[in-house]
Protein backbone atom coordinates (compact mmCIF):
# COMPACT_ATOMS: atom_id res chain seq x y z
CA UNK A 1 0.00 0.00 0.00
CA UNK A 2 1.29 3.44 -0.91
CA UNK A 3 1.19 6.46 1.35
CA UNK A 4 -2.39 7.32 2.20
CA UNK A 5 -3.91 10.72 2.72
CA UNK A 6 -6.76 11.66 5.02
CA UNK A 7 -9.14 11.17 2.10
CA UNK A 8 -8.08 8.90 -0.75
CA UNK A 9 -10.08 8.36 -3.94
CA UNK A 10 -8.57 5.68 -6.17
CA UNK A 11 -10.32 5.04 -9.46
CA UNK A 12 -13.77 5.83 -8.04
CA UNK A 13 -16.81 5.51 -10.32
CA UNK A 14 -20.45 6.18 -9.66
CA UNK A 15 -23.57 6.01 -11.80
CA UNK A 16 -27.05 7.43 -11.38
CA UNK A 17 -28.83 4.99 -13.66
CA UNK A 18 -27.16 5.43 -17.05
CA UNK A 19 -25.40 8.62 -16.05
CA UNK A 20 -21.73 8.27 -15.10
CA UNK A 21 -21.63 11.01 -12.41
CA UNK A 22 -18.13 10.25 -11.14
CA UNK A 23 -15.60 9.08 -13.72
CA UNK A 24 -12.46 7.36 -12.54
CA UNK A 25 -11.74 9.84 -9.74
CA UNK A 26 -8.29 9.68 -8.19
CA UNK A 27 -7.59 12.32 -5.58
CA UNK A 28 -5.76 12.41 -2.29
CA UNK A 29 -6.29 15.00 0.41
CA UNK A 30 -3.53 15.26 3.02
CA UNK A 31 -4.16 15.96 6.70
CA UNK A 32 -4.59 19.72 7.34
CA UNK A 33 -4.97 20.33 3.62
CA UNK A 34 -7.76 22.54 2.24
CA UNK A 35 -9.00 21.52 -1.21
CA UNK A 36 -11.51 23.62 -3.11
CA UNK A 37 -13.65 21.77 -5.66
CA UNK A 38 -15.27 23.84 -8.41
CA UNK A 39 -16.92 23.27 -11.75
CA UNK A 40 -20.16 23.88 -13.61
CA UNK A 41 -23.42 22.66 -12.06
CA UNK A 42 -24.01 18.97 -12.67
CA UNK A 43 -20.28 18.30 -12.87
CA UNK A 44 -20.42 15.90 -9.90
CA UNK A 45 -18.66 18.04 -7.30
CA UNK A 46 -21.39 17.70 -4.66
CA UNK A 47 -21.63 13.97 -5.33
CA UNK A 48 -17.85 13.76 -4.88
CA UNK A 49 -17.87 15.12 -1.33
CA UNK A 50 -21.13 13.37 -0.41
CA UNK A 51 -19.31 10.09 -1.08
CA UNK A 52 -16.69 10.91 1.55
CA UNK A 53 -19.12 10.52 4.47
CA UNK A 54 -21.24 7.89 2.76
CA UNK A 55 -24.30 10.01 1.95
CA UNK A 56 -23.76 8.55 -1.54
CA UNK A 57 -22.39 5.06 -2.12
CA UNK A 58 -19.63 4.50 -4.69
CA UNK A 59 -19.99 1.90 -7.40
CA UNK A 60 -16.40 0.82 -7.88
CA UNK A 61 -12.89 1.89 -7.03
CA UNK A 62 -11.54 2.54 -3.53
CA UNK A 63 -12.35 5.36 -1.18
CA UNK A 64 -10.35 5.40 2.04
CA UNK A 65 -11.20 8.00 4.68
CA UNK A 66 -9.15 8.33 7.88
CA UNK A 67 -7.64 4.90 7.22
CA UNK A 68 -11.02 3.18 6.77
CA UNK A 69 -12.25 1.80 3.48
CA UNK A 70 -15.81 2.79 2.61
CA UNK A 71 -18.11 -0.02 1.51
CA UNK A 72 -16.07 -2.47 3.55
CA UNK A 73 -18.46 -4.32 5.89
CA UNK A 74 -15.91 -3.92 8.70
CA UNK A 75 -16.11 -0.14 8.45
CA UNK A 76 -18.53 1.34 10.97
CA UNK A 77 -20.02 4.23 8.97
CA UNK A 78 -21.84 5.75 11.95
CA UNK A 79 -18.55 5.85 13.85
CA UNK A 80 -16.64 7.26 10.87
CA UNK A 81 -19.25 9.98 10.34
CA UNK A 82 -18.63 11.32 13.84
CA UNK A 83 -15.14 12.28 12.59
CA UNK A 84 -16.48 14.10 9.51
CA UNK A 85 -18.39 17.36 9.68
CA UNK A 86 -20.72 18.14 6.76
CA UNK A 87 -22.04 21.62 5.99
CA UNK A 88 -25.01 21.67 3.61
CA UNK A 89 -25.98 24.29 1.06
CA UNK A 90 -29.43 24.55 2.68
CA UNK A 91 -28.04 24.48 6.28
CA UNK A 92 -30.40 21.69 7.41
CA UNK A 93 -30.54 22.93 10.98
CA UNK A 94 -33.07 21.10 13.15
CA UNK A 95 -36.00 23.56 13.13
CA UNK A 96 -37.48 22.27 16.41
CA UNK A 97 -34.27 22.86 18.36
CA UNK A 98 -32.55 26.08 19.44
CA UNK A 99 -29.11 27.06 18.11
CA UNK A 100 -27.50 25.65 21.26
CA UNK A 101 -29.53 22.41 21.05
CA UNK A 102 -28.51 22.02 17.41
CA UNK A 103 -24.87 22.24 18.46
CA UNK A 104 -25.10 19.98 21.52
CA UNK A 105 -27.39 17.21 20.16
CA UNK A 106 -24.69 14.97 18.69
CA UNK A 107 -22.05 15.61 21.39
CA UNK A 108 -24.58 14.61 24.08
CA UNK A 109 -26.13 11.62 22.31
CA UNK A 110 -23.25 10.32 20.21
CA UNK A 111 -20.14 11.38 22.12
CA UNK A 112 -21.95 10.89 25.46
CA UNK A 113 -20.57 14.15 26.85
CA UNK A 114 -22.44 15.30 30.00
CA UNK A 115 -25.07 17.91 29.18
CA UNK A 116 -23.58 20.77 31.24
CA UNK A 117 -20.17 20.25 29.69
CA UNK A 118 -21.62 20.00 26.17
CA UNK A 119 -23.62 23.19 26.69
CA UNK A 120 -20.55 25.05 27.91
CA UNK A 121 -18.60 23.93 24.83
CA UNK A 122 -21.62 24.75 22.63
CA UNK A 123 -21.85 28.31 23.96
CA UNK A 124 -18.14 28.79 23.33
CA UNK A 125 -18.50 27.53 19.76
CA UNK A 126 -21.48 29.79 19.07
CA UNK A 127 -19.47 32.71 20.48
CA UNK A 128 -16.61 31.73 18.20
CA UNK A 129 -18.84 31.98 15.12
CA UNK A 130 -20.14 35.34 16.39
CA UNK A 131 -23.54 34.18 17.67
CA UNK A 132 -23.16 34.39 21.45
CA UNK A 133 -26.44 36.34 21.60
CA UNK A 134 -28.40 33.78 19.52
CA UNK A 135 -27.87 30.74 21.73
CA UNK A 136 -31.59 30.31 22.44
CA UNK A 137 -32.90 31.36 19.02
CA UNK A 138 -34.68 28.88 16.77
CA UNK A 139 -33.42 28.53 13.18
CA UNK A 140 -36.53 30.27 11.82
CA UNK A 141 -35.53 33.36 13.82
CA UNK A 142 -32.06 33.51 12.25
CA UNK A 143 -30.87 34.89 8.90
CA UNK A 144 -29.34 32.53 6.34
CA UNK A 145 -25.81 33.58 7.23
CA UNK A 146 -26.49 33.07 10.92
CA UNK A 147 -28.04 29.65 10.25
CA UNK A 148 -25.03 28.55 8.27
CA UNK A 149 -22.69 29.68 11.05
CA UNK A 150 -24.73 27.63 13.55
CA UNK A 151 -24.41 24.69 11.14
CA UNK A 152 -20.62 25.09 11.12
CA UNK A 153 -20.59 25.29 14.93
CA UNK A 154 -22.75 22.13 15.00
CA UNK A 155 -20.03 20.30 13.04
CA UNK A 156 -17.20 21.71 15.16
CA UNK A 157 -18.98 20.51 18.31
CA UNK A 158 -18.06 16.95 17.33
CA UNK A 159 -14.36 17.89 17.05
CA UNK A 160 -14.14 16.28 13.61
CA UNK A 161 -10.92 15.41 11.79
CA UNK A 162 -12.39 16.38 8.42
CA UNK A 163 -14.91 18.98 7.34
CA UNK A 164 -16.84 18.90 4.07
CA UNK A 165 -18.65 21.97 2.73
CA UNK A 166 -21.23 21.59 -0.04
CA UNK A 167 -21.69 25.04 -1.59
CA UNK A 168 -22.03 26.63 1.85
CA UNK A 169 -22.65 30.17 0.57
CA UNK A 170 -24.73 29.48 -2.55
CA UNK A 171 -28.07 29.88 -0.79
CA UNK A 172 -27.09 33.14 0.90
CA UNK A 173 -27.78 36.75 0.10
CA UNK A 174 -24.55 38.46 -1.05
CA UNK A 175 -24.14 40.53 2.09
CA UNK A 176 -24.12 37.40 4.25
CA UNK A 177 -21.51 35.47 2.31
CA UNK A 178 -18.47 37.04 3.92
CA UNK A 179 -19.58 36.35 7.50
CA UNK A 180 -19.73 32.64 6.65
CA UNK A 181 -16.47 32.66 4.69
CA UNK A 182 -14.71 34.39 7.61
CA UNK A 183 -15.71 31.52 9.90
CA UNK A 184 -14.52 28.98 7.31
CA UNK A 185 -11.17 30.75 7.00
CA UNK A 186 -10.77 30.62 10.78
CA UNK A 187 -11.52 26.89 10.78
CA UNK A 188 -9.03 26.32 7.96
CA UNK A 189 -6.33 28.29 9.75
CA UNK A 190 -6.70 26.04 12.79
CA UNK A 191 -5.48 23.18 10.63
CA UNK A 192 -8.73 21.40 9.72
CA UNK A 193 -8.66 19.01 6.77
CA UNK A 194 -11.27 20.45 4.43
CA UNK A 195 -12.93 19.75 1.10
CA UNK A 196 -14.99 22.73 0.00
CA UNK A 197 -17.29 22.87 -3.00
CA UNK A 198 -17.47 26.58 -3.80
CA UNK A 199 -16.97 29.20 -6.47
CA UNK A 200 -15.68 31.75 -3.96
CA UNK A 201 -12.28 32.52 -5.44
CA UNK A 202 -11.29 34.87 -2.63
CA UNK A 203 -11.70 32.01 -0.16
CA UNK A 204 -9.77 29.63 -2.41
CA UNK A 205 -6.87 32.05 -2.83
CA UNK A 206 -6.72 32.75 0.89
CA UNK A 207 -6.70 29.26 2.39
CA UNK A 208 -6.76 26.50 -0.24
CA UNK A 209 -3.61 24.58 -1.07
CA UNK A 210 -5.28 23.14 -4.12
CA UNK A 211 -8.15 23.79 -6.48
CA UNK A 212 -9.74 20.84 -8.25
CA UNK A 213 -11.81 21.59 -11.35
CA UNK A 214 -14.46 19.06 -12.34
CA UNK A 215 -16.52 18.78 -15.48
CA UNK A 216 -18.98 16.05 -16.52
CA UNK A 217 -18.02 13.80 -13.62
CA UNK A 218 -14.26 13.88 -14.13
CA UNK A 219 -11.41 15.83 -12.57
CA UNK A 220 -10.17 17.93 -15.50
CA UNK A 221 -7.56 20.03 -13.81
CA UNK A 222 -5.94 20.47 -10.42
CA UNK A 223 -3.38 22.94 -9.11
CA UNK A 224 -2.64 25.71 -6.64
CA UNK A 225 -5.22 28.51 -6.58
CA UNK A 226 -2.74 30.84 -8.28
CA UNK A 227 -2.00 28.42 -11.11
CA UNK A 228 -5.62 27.59 -11.62
CA UNK A 229 -7.16 31.06 -11.52
CA UNK A 230 -4.31 32.87 -13.31
CA UNK A 231 -3.20 30.24 -15.80
CA UNK A 232 -5.93 27.67 -16.41
CA UNK A 233 -4.56 24.90 -18.57
CA UNK A 234 -7.66 23.55 -20.33
CA UNK A 235 -10.30 25.09 -22.58
CA UNK A 236 -13.04 23.88 -20.28
CA UNK A 237 -11.58 25.53 -17.18
CA UNK A 238 -10.95 28.75 -19.15
CA UNK A 239 -14.57 28.76 -20.32
CA UNK A 240 -15.78 28.13 -16.77
CA UNK A 241 -13.60 30.84 -15.24
CA UNK A 242 -14.61 33.41 -17.85
CA UNK A 243 -18.25 32.78 -16.85
CA UNK A 244 -17.78 33.15 -13.11
CA UNK A 245 -15.37 36.09 -13.51
CA UNK A 246 -17.60 38.12 -15.78
CA UNK A 247 -19.82 39.21 -12.89
Amino acid at each position, binding site marked *: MTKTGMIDFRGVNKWFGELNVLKDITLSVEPREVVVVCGPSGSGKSTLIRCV*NGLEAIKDGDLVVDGQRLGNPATNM*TQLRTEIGFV*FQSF*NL*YPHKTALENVTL*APIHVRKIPRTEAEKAGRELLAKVGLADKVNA*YPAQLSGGQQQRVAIARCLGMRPKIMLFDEPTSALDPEMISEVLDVMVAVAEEGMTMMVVTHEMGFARKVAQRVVFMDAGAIVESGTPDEFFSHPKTDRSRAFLSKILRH
Partner: protein
Amino acid sequence: MIWQQLQSLAGSYPLALRGLGMTVVLSLISLVLGTLLGFGLGILRTGGNRLVGSLIGAWVDLIRGTPFLVQIFLIFFILPELGIELDAFTAGIIALTNLAACFICEIVAAGIRSVPTGQVEAALASGLSRWQRMRQVVLPQAMRIVLPPLVGQYVLLIKDSSVVSAIGLTDLTRVGWLVVQRVPNGLLVFFLVGVGYFIVCYPLIMLARRLERRMGAAHGEVQL
Protein backbone atom coordinates in the same frame (compact mmCIF):
# COMPACT_ATOMS: atom_id res chain seq x y z
CA MET B 1 -97.19 9.88 28.78
CA ILE B 2 -93.93 11.73 28.09
CA TRP B 3 -93.71 12.41 31.81
CA GLN B 4 -93.90 8.69 32.59
CA GLN B 5 -91.23 7.96 30.02
CA LEU B 6 -88.91 10.56 31.51
CA GLN B 7 -89.42 9.07 34.97
CA SER B 8 -88.66 5.65 33.65
CA LEU B 9 -85.57 7.02 31.88
CA ALA B 10 -84.37 8.59 35.11
CA GLY B 11 -84.56 5.13 36.64
CA SER B 12 -82.18 3.86 33.96
CA TYR B 13 -79.59 6.41 35.05
CA PRO B 14 -77.20 3.86 36.69
CA LEU B 15 -77.35 1.63 33.63
CA ALA B 16 -76.59 4.58 31.36
CA LEU B 17 -73.59 5.54 33.49
CA ARG B 18 -72.31 1.97 33.30
CA GLY B 19 -72.66 2.04 29.52
CA LEU B 20 -70.88 5.36 29.26
CA GLY B 21 -68.15 4.01 31.53
CA MET B 22 -67.75 0.93 29.33
CA THR B 23 -67.49 3.07 26.20
CA VAL B 24 -64.88 5.30 27.81
CA VAL B 25 -62.81 2.45 29.28
CA LEU B 26 -62.93 0.41 26.08
CA SER B 27 -61.96 3.44 23.97
CA LEU B 28 -59.25 4.60 26.33
CA ILE B 29 -57.50 1.22 26.54
CA SER B 30 -57.75 0.65 22.78
CA LEU B 31 -56.56 4.14 21.91
CA VAL B 32 -53.52 3.93 24.19
CA LEU B 33 -52.56 0.46 22.91
CA GLY B 34 -53.47 1.37 19.32
CA THR B 35 -51.37 4.54 19.48
CA LEU B 36 -48.30 2.68 20.74
CA LEU B 37 -48.76 -0.09 18.18
CA GLY B 38 -49.59 2.41 15.41
CA PHE B 39 -46.42 4.44 16.01
CA GLY B 40 -44.37 1.24 16.01
CA LEU B 41 -45.95 0.06 12.75
CA GLY B 42 -45.63 3.52 11.15
CA ILE B 43 -41.91 3.67 12.00
CA LEU B 44 -41.34 0.14 10.70
CA ARG B 45 -43.35 0.90 7.58
CA THR B 46 -41.02 3.76 6.64
CA GLY B 47 -37.92 2.06 8.07
CA GLY B 48 -36.44 0.97 4.75
CA ASN B 49 -37.00 -2.81 4.96
CA ARG B 50 -39.17 -3.37 1.91
CA LEU B 51 -40.60 -6.74 2.97
CA VAL B 52 -41.64 -5.52 6.43
CA GLY B 53 -43.01 -2.32 4.91
CA SER B 54 -45.19 -4.07 2.37
CA LEU B 55 -46.44 -6.67 4.88
CA ILE B 56 -47.60 -3.87 7.15
CA GLY B 57 -49.07 -2.06 4.15
CA ALA B 58 -51.05 -5.14 3.13
CA TRP B 59 -52.43 -5.64 6.65
CA VAL B 60 -53.41 -1.98 6.93
CA ASP B 61 -55.19 -2.13 3.55
CA LEU B 62 -57.02 -5.29 4.60
CA ILE B 63 -58.26 -3.74 7.84
CA ARG B 64 -59.16 -0.43 6.21
CA GLY B 65 -60.95 -2.24 3.41
CA THR B 66 -63.29 -4.37 5.55
CA PRO B 67 -66.17 -3.26 7.82
CA PHE B 68 -65.32 -3.08 11.49
CA LEU B 69 -68.42 -5.10 12.35
CA VAL B 70 -67.09 -7.97 10.23
CA GLN B 71 -63.70 -7.75 11.92
CA ILE B 72 -65.30 -7.98 15.37
CA PHE B 73 -67.37 -11.00 14.34
CA LEU B 74 -64.26 -12.70 12.95
CA ILE B 75 -62.37 -12.16 16.18
CA PHE B 76 -65.25 -13.06 18.48
CA PHE B 77 -66.78 -16.00 16.63
CA ILE B 78 -63.98 -17.47 14.52
CA LEU B 79 -61.05 -17.43 16.96
CA PRO B 80 -62.86 -19.74 19.45
CA GLU B 81 -63.25 -22.26 16.59
CA LEU B 82 -59.44 -22.27 16.48
CA GLY B 83 -59.29 -22.93 20.20
CA ILE B 84 -58.71 -19.35 21.34
CA GLU B 85 -61.43 -18.46 23.85
CA LEU B 86 -62.06 -14.75 24.27
CA ASP B 87 -64.55 -12.92 26.43
CA ALA B 88 -66.42 -10.10 24.72
CA PHE B 89 -64.39 -7.37 26.44
CA THR B 90 -61.02 -8.80 25.31
CA ALA B 91 -62.34 -9.37 21.81
CA GLY B 92 -63.57 -5.76 21.70
CA ILE B 93 -60.21 -4.43 22.90
CA ILE B 94 -58.30 -6.49 20.33
CA ALA B 95 -60.54 -5.45 17.45
CA LEU B 96 -60.53 -1.75 18.36
CA THR B 97 -56.78 -1.69 19.07
CA ASN B 98 -56.07 -3.30 15.74
CA LEU B 99 -58.32 -0.83 13.92
CA ALA B 100 -56.76 2.14 15.73
CA ALA B 101 -53.23 0.89 15.07
CA CYS B 102 -53.88 0.57 11.33
CA PHE B 103 -55.26 4.08 10.92
CA ILE B 104 -52.60 5.59 13.17
CA CYS B 105 -49.86 3.71 11.30
CA GLU B 106 -50.86 5.51 8.10
CA ILE B 107 -51.00 8.90 9.82
CA VAL B 108 -47.56 8.38 11.41
CA ALA B 109 -46.02 7.10 8.17
CA ALA B 110 -47.30 10.17 6.30
CA GLY B 111 -45.84 12.42 9.01
CA ILE B 112 -42.44 10.72 8.84
CA ARG B 113 -42.38 10.98 5.04
CA SER B 114 -43.10 14.71 5.29
CA VAL B 115 -39.80 15.41 7.07
CA PRO B 116 -37.32 16.74 4.48
CA THR B 117 -34.49 14.35 3.55
CA GLY B 118 -31.98 17.09 4.41
CA GLN B 119 -32.95 16.64 8.05
CA VAL B 120 -32.17 12.94 7.96
CA GLU B 121 -28.92 13.62 6.11
CA ALA B 122 -27.85 16.18 8.71
CA ALA B 123 -28.58 13.67 11.47
CA LEU B 124 -26.75 10.92 9.57
CA ALA B 125 -23.75 13.18 9.02
CA SER B 126 -23.51 13.88 12.76
CA GLY B 127 -23.27 10.17 13.47
CA LEU B 128 -26.68 9.75 15.13
CA SER B 129 -27.86 6.13 15.24
CA ARG B 130 -31.07 5.02 13.54
CA TRP B 131 -33.07 5.25 16.76
CA GLN B 132 -31.50 8.62 17.70
CA ARG B 133 -32.35 10.04 14.26
CA MET B 134 -35.95 8.92 14.72
CA ARG B 135 -36.30 10.05 18.33
CA GLN B 136 -34.38 13.35 18.18
CA VAL B 137 -34.86 14.62 14.64
CA VAL B 138 -37.61 12.90 12.63
CA LEU B 139 -40.44 12.21 15.10
CA PRO B 140 -40.51 15.67 16.74
CA GLN B 141 -40.92 17.22 13.29
CA ALA B 142 -43.36 14.55 12.11
CA MET B 143 -45.54 15.26 15.16
CA ARG B 144 -46.54 18.63 13.71
CA ILE B 145 -48.11 16.79 10.80
CA VAL B 146 -49.33 13.83 12.85
CA LEU B 147 -51.08 15.43 15.85
CA PRO B 148 -54.16 17.09 14.30
CA PRO B 149 -55.31 14.04 12.27
CA LEU B 150 -54.33 11.74 15.15
CA VAL B 151 -56.73 13.47 17.53
CA GLY B 152 -59.36 13.52 14.78
CA GLN B 153 -58.88 9.78 14.40
CA TYR B 154 -59.48 9.30 18.13
CA VAL B 155 -62.94 10.83 17.68
CA LEU B 156 -63.74 8.42 14.85
CA LEU B 157 -62.53 5.45 16.89
CA ILE B 158 -64.59 6.36 19.96
CA LYS B 159 -67.67 6.39 17.73
CA ASP B 160 -66.61 3.11 16.10
CA SER B 161 -66.52 1.54 19.56
CA SER B 162 -70.33 1.49 19.42
CA VAL B 163 -70.02 -1.52 17.14
CA VAL B 164 -68.86 -3.70 20.08
CA SER B 165 -72.46 -3.72 21.32
CA ALA B 166 -73.01 -6.29 18.58
CA ILE B 167 -71.06 -8.92 20.56
CA GLY B 168 -72.97 -8.19 23.75
CA LEU B 169 -70.79 -5.65 25.52
CA THR B 170 -72.93 -3.25 27.52
CA ASP B 171 -71.57 -0.01 26.15
CA LEU B 172 -73.51 3.19 25.65
CA THR B 173 -75.15 2.01 22.41
CA ARG B 174 -76.30 -1.30 23.91
CA VAL B 175 -77.69 0.52 26.91
CA GLY B 176 -79.80 2.39 24.38
CA TRP B 177 -81.13 -0.88 22.97
CA LEU B 178 -81.90 -2.20 26.47
CA VAL B 179 -83.65 0.96 27.61
CA VAL B 180 -85.73 1.37 24.50
CA GLN B 181 -87.39 -1.97 25.24
CA ARG B 182 -88.82 -0.52 28.46
CA VAL B 183 -89.28 3.04 27.29
CA PRO B 184 -90.80 2.85 23.80
CA ASN B 185 -89.52 6.20 22.60
CA GLY B 186 -86.59 5.51 20.28
CA LEU B 187 -86.16 9.12 19.32
CA LEU B 188 -85.71 10.27 22.90
CA VAL B 189 -83.53 7.35 24.00
CA PHE B 190 -81.11 7.47 21.11
CA PHE B 191 -81.02 11.24 21.24
CA LEU B 192 -79.66 10.84 24.78
CA VAL B 193 -77.23 8.12 23.62
CA GLY B 194 -75.96 10.56 20.98
CA VAL B 195 -75.55 13.26 23.61
CA GLY B 196 -73.44 10.81 25.64
CA TYR B 197 -71.03 10.21 22.73
CA PHE B 198 -70.93 13.90 21.94
CA ILE B 199 -69.90 14.77 25.51
CA VAL B 200 -66.94 12.40 25.21
CA CYS B 201 -65.94 13.46 21.69
CA TYR B 202 -66.46 17.21 21.73
CA PRO B 203 -63.39 18.07 23.86
CA LEU B 204 -61.27 16.05 21.43
CA ILE B 205 -62.80 17.83 18.43
CA MET B 206 -61.91 21.15 20.07
CA LEU B 207 -58.38 19.90 20.78
CA ALA B 208 -57.89 18.80 17.17
CA ARG B 209 -59.01 22.21 15.91
CA ARG B 210 -56.70 23.98 18.34
CA LEU B 211 -53.75 21.82 17.30
CA GLU B 212 -54.42 22.47 13.64
CA ARG B 213 -54.29 26.22 14.22
CA ARG B 214 -51.13 25.99 16.36
CA MET B 215 -49.20 23.77 13.94
CA GLY B 216 -49.57 26.36 11.21
CA ALA B 217 -47.79 29.13 13.06
CA ALA B 218 -45.54 27.66 15.70
CA HIS B 219 -41.89 26.92 15.43
CA GLY B 220 -39.86 25.03 17.97
CA GLU B 221 -40.98 22.08 20.06
CA VAL B 222 -44.58 20.97 19.75
CA GLN B 223 -46.40 21.53 23.01
CA LEU B 224 -49.86 20.27 23.85
